[in-house]
């Protein structure tokens, strides 16, 4: 292959690659319209909270979420608004969603403990005790801070760079092609790992129990009860059959309960 032809292909590939990098940004922003408006509403909701109008603030935070401002701070403040309105389960769901997006936030964990403690002050077990189950829990602290869109975009760029290095290698520039190839391979491995981590985390379906309810041995109310899931407890969904889910509590015990008793987070 002559150099002119290869250069032409390389240029085309670079253009395609650069164009592809802009797609996720555009895609993400298409879901969050008018950031200035959202920030202003966030500030207004904060002011409502400070004035003690928790219900109005909660409504405004819900509106922000509906408009696509899915952000750990929005969920956290919504949790506070629910808590100040004594809507404990709603508060727990909001805090859990905030924690999902930002697993390292200590204030979210503290408020979860406080609200769960309010719900079940006599419970001996800590409903939100950290669970050591699954690869998703292991990768979460490392992977969660990197947004899914960024990870996916980086993976696309890494693939483009890898192909580019192969084309450069074929033109005879072996040293440059080799260096580029090695760097893009490392980058590809890294981004693939992050993307896989996110994929794992997404597959790690979690939910909050809405009311204290019995866990059963099978996916039907006729099955024998095994244990109880307290209201506000976090569970991991292992399997779904129809409207029933097999869940695992933080203490490791499993059982089946109806989808109407759960709120996914």
């Amino acid at each position, binding site marked *: *292959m002559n150099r002119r032809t*290869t250069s032409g292909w390389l240029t*085309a*590939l670079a253009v*395609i*690659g650069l164009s*592809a990098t802009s*797609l*996720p940004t555009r895609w*993400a922003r298409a*879901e*969050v319209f008018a950031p*200035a408006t*959202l*920030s*202003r509403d966030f*500030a207004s909701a904060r*002011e409502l*909270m*400070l*004035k*003690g*109008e*928790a*219900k109005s603030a909660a409504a405004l935070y819900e509106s*922000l979420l509906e408009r696509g*401002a899915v*952000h*750990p*701070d*929005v969920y*956290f*403040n919504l949790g*506070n608004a629910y*808590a*100040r*309105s*004594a809507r404990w389960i709603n508060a727990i769901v909001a805090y859990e969603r905030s924690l999902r997006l930002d697993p390292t936030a200590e*204030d979210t964990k*503290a*408020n979860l403990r*406080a*609200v769960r403690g*309010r719900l079940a002050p006599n419970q001996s077990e800590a409903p939100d005790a950290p669970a050591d189950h699954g690869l998703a829990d292991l990768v979460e602290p490392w992977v969660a801070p*990197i*947004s*899914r*869109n960024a*990870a*996916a*975009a980086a993976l*696309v760029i890494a*693939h*483009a760079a*890898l*192909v*580019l290095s192969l*084309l450069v290698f074929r033109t005879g520039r072996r040293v440059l092609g080799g260096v580029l190839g090695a760097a893009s391979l490392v980058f590809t491995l890294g981004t693939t790992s992050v*993307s896989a981590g996110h*994929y794992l985390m997404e597959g790690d379906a979690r939910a909050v129990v809405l009311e204290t309810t019995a866990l059963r041995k099978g996916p039907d109310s006729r099955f024998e009860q095994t244990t109880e899931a307290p209201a506000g407890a976090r569970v991991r969904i292992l399997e779904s059959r129809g409207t029933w889910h097999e869940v695992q509590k933080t203490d490791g015990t499993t059982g089946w309960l109806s989808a109407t008793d759960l709120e996914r987070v």
Partner: protein
Amino acid sequence: MELTGARAWRAQIETRVAGARARRAFAFPLSLAAALAVGGSSRLGRAAEPLSVTASLETGSAEVGDVVTLNVRVVSRINGSVEVELGTTDGLSVLSQSRSESTAISWSSNRGQSLTREVGVRIELEVERAGTLVIEPVTARVGRTSAKSSPLKLRVALGRAPSSPARSGAMTAPDANEAPLFIRYRVDGDQAFVGEQILLHLEIFARPGLNFGLEDRAPAPPELDGFWREIVFQPQRLTRRDERIQGRPYHAYTVWSVALFPLSAGARTIEPVRMTFVRNRSIFDAGQRLRRRTRPRMLSIDPLPTEGRPADFVNTNVGDYTLSARVDADRVQANKAVLLTLELRGAGNISATKLPEVTALDGFRVFPPTLEDEVQRGPGGVQGAKRAEILLMPTRGGRLEIPSFSMSIFDPLAKAYRRLSTSALRIAVDGNITAQAPGSSGPSDSAGPPEAAALSLAPIRFGSDLGAPGGPHATTPWTEPWFVAGLALPWAVFVAVWGSERLRIAVRRQTPARRRRSTARRARGRLKEAREAAQAGRLADAYSAFLEAVLSLGTEKLGVNLNGQTTEQIQAALVDRGAPISLVSPLAEELQTADFARFAPGGLEDRNPDKVLERWEHIFAALEGFEPKEVP
């Protein structure tokens, strides 16, 4: 005489004929009869006159300064060029003239071919004085034949006052070569302070009645060094207003207006801009192109005075402003916040101004402000408001006071520094402020049911930038089409590159038939060179090229390299492979001649190039068509 329209007809009616005066009651029938008698619009009249001229005005009345149009029509049935002379016109000056011609040919059985030429002249005249002006007859000449139109009258009145007040800023009159259309910068002042708002307008001035248009788009407002610029007015359609410049009426149009804020002191020049106009353009006439240029405008920018400058003055706070403060409630319950709004409003570069900072207030906890600018831009310049909304949380009950806030500005109208102050505000806080719950580092957001209020929670989060990239985590990109396409595309490109390369190699692979064809093509090319050399008289070169052609073709045909072999060897090779004698003999002869030419090129001079070429063509065609026998 042809009738051109109601007004023109009336103008013609009012002409004086040999000093005679016709009474208005009988003017119409008498003039009509006279017009028909002289040679009206009938074919009979036209046939009798070899040359006729008609003049008419588009209007019978005008004002001083107006532009009126005189239309002249000449009809000639005589061979020769038509010359048109305008009579003297006291009180009128000629601005422009344009001319059009057309020729019509007609046949008739009794007269044969006849040629009719029509010339139209359009003259724009500027009215210079009031009264009843007489336009002397227009004379048309073709050779020795001439004809005159009737004189015309124009009633001129003095002009009206302008319908809108004249704008501020001196406006210089046009030069002689610019009238009746010119462009100018208008500035609301040639001297200003640093940071003071200066309004600059680009305007077009045209005499009333002038028919003109822009040839290109209007020039954009220029970027000016040393100024902060805001475009405040740039209409899509120009709106006309009336103005008087040195007593003369003009139609004025504003092309754009900008607000300039000088950034430093010194002399500044606003460079001229150019515009191109077209006058009297129509579907029959491309019109006259006019290029106009503004004059450069000098501005003198003074520094802000140092004497009397307040210590808290900020350089961007220059303008005509007022400062106010208000709260959203003057009575609140304990543990509820109030919103304090500070507002600076007025005319100037409001976006660049700085409000006084509110950091600590006795009895309140002060949160960071939310700033907002409200800017209005219009032909009057830039104005608006800058607001700061500050959340205040009372830290104790009772009557609390928010003190007055002050700031210093420079007022360019007063040319002095001014102090702006708000009035103090009073807030009544009912109830006792509860102590902060342990573990909460921010203001309490407790309200609602008592059990909810008693709960100790980490406070709400402030200042999230919801628009920051990477913030939202809601999307699942792996399911999006772009993700799959983005991953697959580079590999698809790689496969395409590799595949196209393999395809090209396969296509270019040489098969025996392809090789034979390309050899024959090359041989024909050499034969062509041989032909050209022979025609040019270079027989030695021609033989050399011919030799190369037949040897390469023969090598390909026989599969044996004939280069370097003797003529006899080549002959024998051809015969062995079944070549006919009609090919072998002439070929051998030419090969020998080619050898001869190599060593004694002068010996070919007596050869006839045409015959040589003819022989070569025959040999080459026979060689091309020769199919050699297979070697056993």
